[in-house]
């Protein structure tokens, strides 16, 4: 259990800057997700933390130990970091048992740790198998057990579920989350999948263009994104132009209460207002007080229905997305009225 920090981290490949001043703190024992679109530098960050790449500038500490600054560089084998790569990367010439035992000394292999780990990841009976005899999910579990075997201060997971198919992904995710919690290890998970980050992690750090754009708990990030782009990146968002004054936002959808966290203003100011789809309510017909609109399309997902509507032209809103529970079947072209439920977040124009 170790705290991991990265301060002012820079890394470029040739002339291509990849990391441009990363600031990251991973609290002891937490599962922190680094979330970013592909090309944002998240894998590079992980490789620099593991020591497979050297940073150009910056400081990395593991607990009280500085593992990299301008002058010192601790090679990966001395960092005590467990690394779980995308494809598992099991040693194809070794059995499950010997894969798990790879990082252990002869003495450490005798303390029953291997069997315990195999049991923990649910592969107690498969220790004699070779990697190619395992399914993708089983391979990932072995990779995790192998990483945990060396009792690492921190476990780094590089998109460990992206190569699994959707059905398997959910169960392997849950297992990994449980194993990491039981082991109490500090873990860093790199992913491009918002659902994965929001549902698994204690803390999410969103990486954009080589730096951390926002860090917080999943709820904080979802409810209080720092800017409209972040709002769109973390889940669906309707972004509407309007104005704010003190505690309310005025929009074509009506006057809406502002959520705490919006930059306070004391005079009416133009602003971008975020309305999450689940806040949008759809009423068939025109009997309710709200914005009239016409249904464009409607997708039924079982647990909810996503409806896209086109508000009347005078509103100036191109489209609105609503998520309603239940099976509200509305044919395209149906006249509806739209209202908003709850408080909204807004970013006053600077």
């Amino acid at each position, binding site marked *: 259990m170790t705290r991991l920090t990265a301060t002012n981290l820079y890394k470029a490949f040739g002339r291509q800057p990849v990391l441009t001043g990363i600031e990251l703190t991973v609290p002891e024992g937490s599962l922190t997700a680094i979330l970013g679109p592909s090309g944002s530098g998240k894998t590079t960050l992980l490789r620099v933390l593991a020591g497979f790449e050297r940073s150009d500038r910056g400081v990395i500490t593991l607990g009280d130990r500085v593992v990299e600054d301008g002058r010192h560089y601790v090679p990966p084998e001395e960092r005590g970091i467990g690394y779980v790569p995308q494809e598992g990367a099991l040693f194809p*010439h070794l059995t499950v048992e010997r894969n798990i035992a790879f990082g252990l000394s002869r003495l450490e292999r005798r303390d029953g740790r291997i069997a315990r780990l195999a049991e923990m990841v649910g592969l107690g009976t498969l220790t004699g198998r070779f990697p190619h005899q395992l399914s993708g999910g089983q391979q990932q579990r072995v990779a995790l057990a192998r990483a945990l075997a060396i009792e690492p201060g921190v476990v780094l997971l590089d998109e460990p579920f992206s190569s699994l198919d959707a059905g398997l992904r959910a169960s392997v995710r849950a297992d990994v989350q449980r194993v990491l919690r039981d082991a109490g290890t500090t873990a860093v998970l790199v992913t491009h999948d918002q659902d994965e980050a929001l549902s698994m992690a204690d803390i999410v750090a969103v990486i954009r263009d080589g730096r951390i754009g926002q860090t917080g708990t999943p709820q904080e990030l979802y409810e209080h994104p720092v800017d409209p782009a972040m709002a769109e990146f973390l889940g669906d968002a309707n972004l509407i132009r309007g104005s704010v004054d003190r505690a309310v936002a005025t929009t074509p959808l009506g006057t809406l209460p502002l959520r705490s966290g919006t930059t306070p203003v004391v005079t009416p100011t133009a602003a971008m207002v975020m309305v999450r789809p689940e806040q949008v309510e759809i009423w068939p017909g025109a009997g309710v007080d709200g914005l009239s609109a016409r249904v464009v399309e409607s997708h039924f997902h079982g647990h909810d229905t996503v409806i896209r509507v086109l508000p009347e032209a005078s509103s100036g809103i191109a489209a609105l997305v609503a998520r309603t529970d239940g099976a509200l079947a509305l044919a395209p072209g149906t006249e509806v009225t739209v209202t908003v439920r709850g408080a909204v977040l807004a970013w006053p124009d600077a």
Partner: protein
Amino acid sequence: MTVATLPDPTHVPAVHRRRPRALVGASVVVAALLILPLVFLLLQARQVGWGQLSALLFRHLTGTLLWNTVRLSIVVTAASAAIGTAAAWFIERTDLPGRRWWAVLVVIPVAIPDFVVSFGWVSVAPSLHGFAGAALVMTLAVYPLVYLPVAASFRGADPGQEEVARGLGLGRVRTFFRVTVAQARPAILGGCLLVALALLAEYGAFEILRYQTFTTEIFTEFQVGDVPVACALSLILVLLGLVLLTADGFGRGSGRTSRSGPSVARARQPQRLGRGTVPVVAGFVVLAGLAVGVPFGTLVYWLLQGGRTTLPAAASLSSAAWHSAGYSAAAAALATAAALPVALLSVRYPGRTTMLLERSTFLVLALPGVVIALALVYFSEHDAAFLYQRSPLLIVAYAILFFPLALVAVRASVAQAPTGLEEMARGLGCRPWSVLWRVTLRLVAPGLAAAFCLVFLSAVTELTSTLILIPTGAQTLATQFWAYTTNLSYAAAAPYATVMLVIAVIPSYLLGRWFNRLPSKAATPT
């Protein structure tokens, strides 16, 4: 053949990792050793002096040799390209009856040394010599060098392209030339290069067929002790080899093959031969009869003859076999060990310097055995008399000569072993040297075994440099066979060729097993 690799966005290019000094050091030493024969050749040429060299170069004999060498190379290369490509297409892409058997049969000539093939032919048809004889015999001996890469390329290429071409209204023949041959072009060119280089280097077969080329003439001059002439001719021979390598580089640069869509090949529908079946099968029967039947038939014939007349002393046979196997195994181990650092460096740490280093080792391809052997003789006479006609010199000559084979095999398996695993091992606390031992070597073991077998197989059947460098008093299977053949004691020679083939077959078999046993799954973790 090199496969163009696109940079994988999820993986950071290895260029940015620091090259380990030990690896660079070892590779530089290997490259330097490989270039040594060329250096010795140039030193020798300088000693002879330009005046004398130019007088020797611009005379009638040189012209004759050049004409002989070039016209034979053109005819045999063209014939091998045609036979090799056609055979590969029929076996890989059509419903030819008995495809699996033909696939084995048409490759066999590659395991028979060329001088044994020509021995077979000359003993059936003593009048067969000169250009026509050389062209016929050499084509039958070397066409598998085209067949093998082309067949592999057909197996890997996308058959959908042929179907699309047919769908777009191209006939069978036009589809074959515009799509199929275009797909296999790099493989065909690669095979042709091997054929042409083999022709430049061949000595034994031409000597038996009484066809004069640069190599046979260099050998003769060496035997009569005319160093300046041997040196001058060697220069031209090396130059021809370099021209071929350069031309190949250009020919390859413009070719692109690509494959779109998922990389898993569909089970393909072989093309129907229909009424063409009978003539095609007849063609395969003739090819196998000429290329495999004649050498084996004559060998068996002479063995049976020998049974009635003079059998060589079993002691001499086994001693020759021991020498052959011993020298070859030592050379195979040496070449494989030398190939490992170069392969690791070139695959793991690509870059301009690394590429230059790797390319320089390929210069050896332009050096025929006779030139390497003479360069080493020159070296030992001048600088290391204690090595002259001692086994280390022969072993080193083999290792240099067959280094490119070892490199190809080791490189392929290093390229297959994912780098992620080595990083993984370091992440788990392994030191770099320990990673080499516990991970890298285990993963590339099949490649190392393949390299060992390839070099061993080639060294056992090597004749030219063996004749020059054989340690005093020792005999190998090849030199004994040669001694009897040149005395026209065919029956006495046959057992040596037979044992040579048997010894060469074992590594071939192992080689085949390694490649089959290595499931693609085991090599790349899924």
